[in-house]
């Protein structure tokens, strides 16, 4: 598959995530859209890994090319899991304090 297709697909998924963050008011949905953006980046990293590997195989230079990108994806998943646990704790605390998860109510810093 040409790498451009993967770039286009990952860009579309990332931009759908951006639109979700900008247009929804529910904090949990916004959080899910951030996960979507992380996954788009992961997909592109894996595609680039296989692109580098194909190039290295064709040139017979480095047979372990592309391993680093897949390990980056693994570490991104690790960080995302930690992020989700803290973020959902924050959302639950927010719901306990203001009885809503609407981000438009969280404007106390503004005035």
């Amino acid at each position, binding site marked *: 598959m040409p790498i451009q297709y993967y770039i286009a697909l990952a860009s579309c998924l990332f931009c759908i995530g951006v639109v979700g963050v900008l247009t929804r008011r529910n904090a949990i949905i916004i959080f899910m859209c951030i996960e979507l953006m992380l996954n788009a980046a992961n997909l592109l990293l894996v595609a680039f890994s296989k692109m580098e590997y194909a190039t290295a195989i064709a040139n017979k230079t480095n047979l372990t090319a592309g391993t680093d990108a897949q390990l980056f994806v*693994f570490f991104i998943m690790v960080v995302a899991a930690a992020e989700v646990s803290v973020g959902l704790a924050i959302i639950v605390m927010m719901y306990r304090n203001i009885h809503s998860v609407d981000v438009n109510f969280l404007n106390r810093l503004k005035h």
Partner: protein
Amino acid sequence: MSIDEILFWFLSALALFSAIMVLLSKNPVHSVLWLIVVFFAISGHYLLLNAQFLAIVNIIVYAGAIMVLFLFVIMLINLNTETERQQNIWMKFFGVISGGLLLWIFISASRSAYDVANKTAMLKEGDVGLIQNLGKVLFNEYALPFEISSILFLSAMVGAVVIGKKD
């Protein structure tokens, strides 16, 4: 059209459609379920790229653990019956416009890039994504980041408990 291309287009269409449905669903539980479909489609892409370890980890960690956590929080604070108040129509309009502009910039910047011109991603073959190769590199070159990530998990656990506890 070979079976790889059919699978690629099917999984891409499934991922994009489900991602849009995540945004359009009124009920947050439906959004979570559509997001799980997105994760399965992305795992299918990983399998197509022969990154088997990441495909399994993606299903276990994302679809298995993280999404269950989301569902649990939604059930806990009882969001599934409440109707969400909608964003201002102008805010929606400009959100979609700015997302579309961002997509335009991504596509036009990458379309003519020299580094990715005429390159292809290897499908179905190549053993770089097998767990044997990844494990060797992970525990040799990336042993220190691996251990640091365990400290990150510990701090996230402590942070979640401290934030979530009733004072």
